[in-house]
């Protein structure tokens, strides 16, 4: 399994073509089920496309693993959903700060294990 870089909405362009992991809140699921609007940890709205239907609820927090395409959208390989109890205390703003830290100090945060 290749390593995924944890990013937020503003970093999409930087990571074009690279495998990424994005955590965010589902703002809208398109009727087809293949396209999700995701609000990322830095309050950006991005589009996630999947080949299969993704069963997520609007308002839930998910983690998307995939690649950034040249339209600044995520082509997702897999989606990780969480139990409500798991995300009840999740501090999205703090996660965003963590993501920024990973970028600032890449030598201190291992990605390739």
């Amino acid at each position: 399994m290749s390593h995924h870089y944890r990013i937020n909405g503003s970093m999409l362009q930087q990571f074009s073509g690279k495998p990424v992991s994005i955590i965010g809140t589902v703002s809208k699921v398109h009727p087809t089920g293949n396209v999700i609007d995701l609000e990322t940890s830095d309050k950006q709205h991005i589009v996630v496309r999947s080949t299969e239907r993704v069963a997520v609820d609007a308002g839930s927090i998910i983690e998307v693993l995939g690649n950034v395409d040249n339209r600044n959208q995520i082509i997702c390989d897999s989606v990780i959903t969480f139990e409500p109890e798991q995300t009840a205390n999740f501090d999205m703003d703090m996660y965003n700060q963590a993501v920024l830290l990973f970028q600032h100090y890449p030598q201190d945060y291992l990605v390739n294990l």
Partner: protein
Amino acid sequence: MASQRLTTGALLRYIRGNTTEKANLQVVGIKPIESKTDDPSGSAKRYRLMLSDGKSTFSSCMLGTQMNKLIETNTLKENSIIRIDRVMVNSIDKQNGRVMLMLYEIEVVESDFERIGDPIALPLTDIINSEPNTNRLEATTNNPPAAPAAAPVTNVIRQGAKALPTLDDRKKPNGGNRAAAAKGTNVIDKERVINIDTLNPYMNKWTIKARISNKCPIRTYENARGPGKLFSCDLVDKSGEIRATGFNAECDRLYSMLEIGEVYYITKASLKAANRQYNTTNSDYEMTFNHDTIVEACDVGEGENIPQVQYNFISISEIANRAANSVCDVIGVVKSTSDMQTIVSKASQKEFSKRDILLVDEKASISATLWGQQAEEFDGSSHPVIAFKAIKIGDFNGRTLSVSNSTLMRQDPTETERTVELRVWFDNEGKLMDLPDLSKAGEAGNRPTVMKTLSQVITEGIGLGDKPDYVSVKAVITIIKKDTAVYMMCPEGKCSKKVVDENNGTYRCEKCNKTYNSFKWAYMISAEISDTASAQWITIFRNEAETLLGVSAEEFGNHKLNQSESIVDEIISKAMNRELIFKLRAKAEQYNDERKIRFTCVSITEMDWPSHGRRLLNEINQMEPVQN
């Protein structure tokens, strides 16, 4: 408004140094850039804008970070019209056309708009040639009185009313004469006075007009390079404050010159990211006086609109989250005042007189200690509002405050509205309220302890002192000695001694000097805990052990008696390999000739990941960032 016109030609005029103009410009591009700067908070993004004045575009316009939210809330976006209220030019490499416009204050005039005109990028030649004196000489830093010939100051090229910044002239041989620092009003460019909150390490020429709100006495130190001395002071203007330090030669030169309460023009000092541990100013940066620094006293009357002091208050309850020996600014009402006390320092056998006051705010209270003359003169009978700047935090019995040499104490300060807020609150309800007191730890379990790693615990000698130390660690149990987890304890209420099994149904307690027909199982678990740094054996008793294993000592003992290995193993394994917060008491004990530290577990709590994350972020923010 229908006809929103842009100020054509403004971009070139800005680049030429005419920065007083308040132009209307259109945003034609926004790009977030990675901020690999000295920014200690690590989370400030910088936006780079491409602006158009209708005729030309310029792409190197940096938006001040305090306005980031305009972009993040989509108020400022592509095609928005903005009015520039404050801008400065930053010449990285003027001769090659590399300049930047720093947008310090803007106003979004129209959020949504169509693209105006068909602007084209400003030609490089225009930028390079935008000043008349194209063969500018290397700059000299100041105007020494003994300078040969009457060369006008060549580092400042005047064009109109404003001067252009120059290349970094710190690298040039410095012909400066130190005496010029004290006089020579022609050296300080008073027209270039900027706010303290706009200072950053990338600016080449700036002048500030600031009041010395606090000055610490000269301290000597010794490091690898030998002995040295330093002093530091806080500089305040209406935009904010910044800490400035002078070392060795600068210390000698400037310490006596800078008087607390007076206002000075200061220019040419180094700027770097602030060391948050010792610096409670809310500036991202701190200043170091260097041998180019020029300081000039303001004339009487010139400093009138500079405030006396800048406070960065935290609430009293927040002090619980701060580390001991750090400093903070705090304000509260004096609820009670103790009498004068005299204590003798164990270390120096010297006598100190002190007075404790109980400081309260709307949510908590804390004890603060005043010393010497300040303590003697203090009168808290009117329950005044007291503000402390840079008061030291101690961890005796929880959290306490102590005035130090660099602390500033003000009674009923007028610079902050907190004074009135607190006064009103106290007079109406506060004086009757019983607030949580940070200086009363109560049981050991309530003591807010510092978090350390297990290797820090050893290297910092925790527990080696006369009294026991308390520390918290985030660790995992890696070994539990299950065979000795419980012991047979004397059934007598207060006695907890181990009894001897006489193997005939009776049990002898040597301490009580009695034989009993029964015993009680009691926990005394020897366990090894490990974290990322090291491992340590600790002992876990009674309640904590029961919390950990989830079964009473009695139940565990019975399983042991019944030799139900698998049940015991299951109980043990549930406790292992889970990250928990262990609050430990470390106490040195003498074993024959050896002095060893024994660690006892005072409490075990589950991880609270959000607060742990916040603690880590706080610690990271306090560390000095790696200089690139």
